[in-house]
């Protein structure tokens, strides 16, 4: 099953690659329409839009998923129901492809809902309590986005069809489009885990590592960004785009800080994904959709690679994910640490790896165009924080002493996993330059002063020095930790958002309903109906029985009494 799907998806990737090259060289864009059923004036039509963006994205998605399936053949080889896992992954890929190629909202909804549901199934794949909680959080957060898209469908019916791409030119200033853009932004924010909805991404790390590599690094979370890229022509002048800018910058900043406090390997990588998503959303909301797309693709490559390396390391450490137990691994597992290092450095934006092309271009565009001071500061600060937690991670995992046990076996020769990582390594080295030559037919004009140009390097060096220093915590530095306890817990727990969005939302209602239940359902309404009436009737019956149990002559005497009573009574 693994091999078959790997070959199928790889072949699919090659087809997509050739079509992509042909389409982008000739500037083609093809729109298929298949009329499923046509009734008097109603027709159900399935349409597919193929232009260079969708073909490129499909190529990347199929590449990553083929590599991940090949990887999971070895990673999950002790799983009894591996076929079930592979089928879930394939359904996920199918939903993603449906989302990518669809120009109308109904098939977007199908793909979107499919993504949400299948990611729920994949997150709860290891059926323990933590996975169940994580799955519920994931599914419900994604559900908000689904509801938003449903409402967009409802509003777009005003225009006559659900093919949104035809209406952008004509209806831009309409009130209906205003509402639609608001809802689309909220939907994309839930899927890509921006600030109000960002609590599900670190929690979804309870999924198996191949799932994290495919879903939470490159496909599910980028679906929101892709939706906004498609709708970009509509959203450019809207007010909510500025709100999105604000929220995504804050997401980027917050997750960068929180990743510095984390000690779980997969959570660090998840928070770094969140930070890069904030970066993508913010550059998109500044008005540069193609740069956002570029960064989306390069980020997919090295993040998937990073997750796969993390999976190898976790297997080696006897399923421990805590980085305090790891250390010095670069001496023992050269090939895996090669992949880890290259993907980490690509994440930081080290020159001429793939991440450099997209990240540096983003930062230079931010500096060149005049935005406000907060945007500027937070962008550069977040870049510095990226380097900070990356170097901290490298110090903990690669360089410091090994912390697990005396006897260990760090097995690096698992060539199935390594071969899949090498494919992504190759792509993560070359895809930056390769994509920039394809996507940007002419380079952007950027003219910056010298220090501003080198600002990226200054911030990166500062971040790396801090990362080095913070990972050398000795025993004597631990006694000052309580001084900053409040601030640290605020920053570490993602600014308390997971608690606010789960417990904080339901606390009032559950409390109130407990009060109602105890006082009314189990309280007064039992006295005024139910038990109360039963007690009254029972007392009446007991009272009657006193009259029933008597001598016979009393009965006869009572008859005479009744006669007289009735006689007198009816005289009156």
């Amino acid at each position, binding site marked *: 099953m693994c091999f078959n799907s790997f070959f199928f998806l790889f072949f699919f990737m090659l087809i997509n690659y050739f079509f992509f090259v042909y389409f982008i060289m000739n500037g083609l864009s093809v729109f298929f329409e298949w009329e499923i059923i046509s009734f008097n004036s109603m027709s159900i039509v399935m349409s597919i839009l193929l232009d260079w963006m969708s073909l490129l994205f499909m190529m990347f998605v199929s590449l990553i998923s083929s590599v991940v399936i090949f990887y999971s053949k070895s990673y999950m080889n002790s799983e009894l129901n591996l076929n079930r896992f592979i089928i879930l992954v394939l359904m996920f890929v199918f939903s993603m492809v449906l989302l990518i190629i669809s120009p109308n909202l109904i098939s977007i909804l199908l793909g979107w809902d499919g993504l949400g549901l299948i990611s729920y199934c994949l997150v709860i794949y290891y059926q323990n309590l933590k996975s169940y909680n994580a799955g519920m959080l994931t599914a419900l957060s994604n559900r908000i986005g689904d509801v938003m898209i449903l409402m967009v469908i409802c509003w777009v019916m005003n225009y006559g069809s659900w093919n949104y791409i035809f209406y952008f030119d004509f209806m831009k200033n309409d009130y209906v489009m205003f509402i639609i853009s608001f809802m689309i932004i909220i939907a994309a924010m839930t899927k890509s885990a921006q600030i109000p909805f960002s609590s599900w991404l670190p929690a979804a790390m309870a999924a198996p590592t191949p799932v994290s590599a495919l879903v939470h690094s490159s496909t599910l979370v980028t679906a929101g960004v892709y939706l906004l890229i498609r709708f970009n022509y509509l959203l450019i002048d809207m007010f909510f785009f500025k709100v999105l800018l604000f929220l995504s910058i804050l997401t980027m900043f917050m997750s960068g800080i929180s990743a510095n406090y984390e000690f779980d390997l997969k959570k660090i990588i998840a928070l770094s994904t969140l930070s890069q998503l904030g970066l993508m959303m913010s550059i998109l909301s500044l008005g540069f959709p193609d740069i956002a797309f570029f960064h989306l693709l390069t980020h997919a490559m090295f993040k998937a690679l990073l997750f796969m390396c993390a999976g190898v390391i976790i297997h080696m450490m006897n399923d421990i994910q805590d980085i305090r137990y790891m250390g010095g691994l670069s001496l023992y597992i050269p090939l895996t640490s090669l992949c880890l290092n290259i993907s980490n450095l690509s994440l930081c934006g080290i020159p001429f790896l793939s991440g450099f092309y997209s990240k540096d271009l983003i930062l230079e565009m931010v500096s060149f165009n005049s935005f406000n001071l907060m945007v500027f500061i937070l962008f550069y600060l977040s870049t510095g924080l990226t380097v900070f937690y990356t170097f901290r991670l490298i110090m903990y995992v690669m360089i410091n002493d090994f912390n697990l046990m005396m006897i260990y076996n760090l097995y690096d020769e698992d060539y199935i996993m390594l071969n899949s990582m090498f494919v992504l390594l190759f792509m993560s080295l070359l895809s930056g330059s390769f994509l920039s030559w394809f996507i940007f037919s002419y380079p952007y004009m950027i003219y910056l002063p010298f220090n501003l140009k080198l600002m990226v390097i200054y911030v990166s060096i500062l971040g790396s020095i801090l990362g080095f220093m913070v990972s050398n915590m000795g025993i004597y530095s631990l006694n000052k930790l309580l001084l900053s306890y409040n601030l640290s817990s605020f920053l570490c727990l993602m600014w308390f958002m997971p608690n606010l969005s789960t417990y904080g939302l339901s606390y009032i209602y559950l409390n109130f309903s407990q009060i109602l239940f105890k006082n009314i359902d189990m309280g007064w309404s039992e006295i005024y109906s139910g038990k109360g009436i039963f007690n009254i009737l029972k007392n009446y*019956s007991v009272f*009657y029985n006193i009259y*029933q149990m008597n001598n*016979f002559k009393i009965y*006869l005497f*009572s008859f005479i009494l*009744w*006669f007289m009573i009735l*006689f007198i009574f*009816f005289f009156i």
Partner: protein
Amino acid sequence: MLTNNNSNKMFFLFILFFSTLISISSNSWFGCWIGLEINLLSFIPLISNSKNLLSVETSLKYFLTQSLASINFLFMILIKFSLLKNFDMNNIISIMMNSSLLMKMGSAPFHFWFPNIVEGLSWMNNFMLMTWQKISPMILLSYYFNKNFLIFMIIMNLIIGSLGGLNQTSLRKLLAFSSINNLGWMIFSIMISENLWLFYFLIYSMMIFMMISLFFLMNMYFMNQLFINNMNFFIKLNLLINFLSLGGLPPFMGFMPKWIIINFLLINKFYFLTFIFMMTSLIIIYYYIRIIYSSFMFNYFKMKWVNLLMKNNMSLINLSSFISISSMILSTFIFM
């Protein structure tokens, strides 16, 4: 009663039937009284059994109350003949005549003897007491009644029948209070028309017959005898259906007469009385369901020394269940 054989019973039974016919088909009130007296005289030998002290005491109690009622009835007839030579019905003498007839029937407030006596009789005698003995007083009631008085009596019957039955464990007393409750319905129906009363009475006696015959065949006198687990399923089902039908639950036969009487209540604008009818019905049904729910659904310990099998003479049980369930629907084919 020197011997206990069936020929004596047949003789007195014949006179019992004949006495009712005398009572309801006579031209003058005196003939009615004669019928009532012969009724009393022929019922006493049916129920007394000199070998059983309880049975003797029961027959004595019955004799005392019924004779008191008969004396009252005769006296009121004579007062009516001599002092009131009118034809209108709602006056004081009709109250007295109705009171004595109500005492004959065992209706509230003259009902205190009724649960006592049914406790001492066997099931078949109970059946005669609850059904046949009500015919002639009811028909005599319809000849000369006081509307306001009877409505008051109806309310008392309903309330006492429902509240008194809540605290009982003996099946005979339970059916006695249910009979008092149903007397309320029957008194109202006889105020509307005799035809309606006949309808109600026939269905009621059919239901009582099914129940009493079931209890008679299984020899059950008390409630805790119902909780035996190895009763045949059909017997339990029949019991369930009969109790629910007696309570007046819709798909069963017992719903039809109650429905028609409520219809007549609402036509004649007795709204508050309708409310009392329905609420007391609820209490009665609560009590029935309490019994059969426990015996039908719960799993008690299996007693090994009591074995209630389906005997040979129980083959009519299936037929009676079928009649109880389907008769309301089948009646639409007959009457429409």
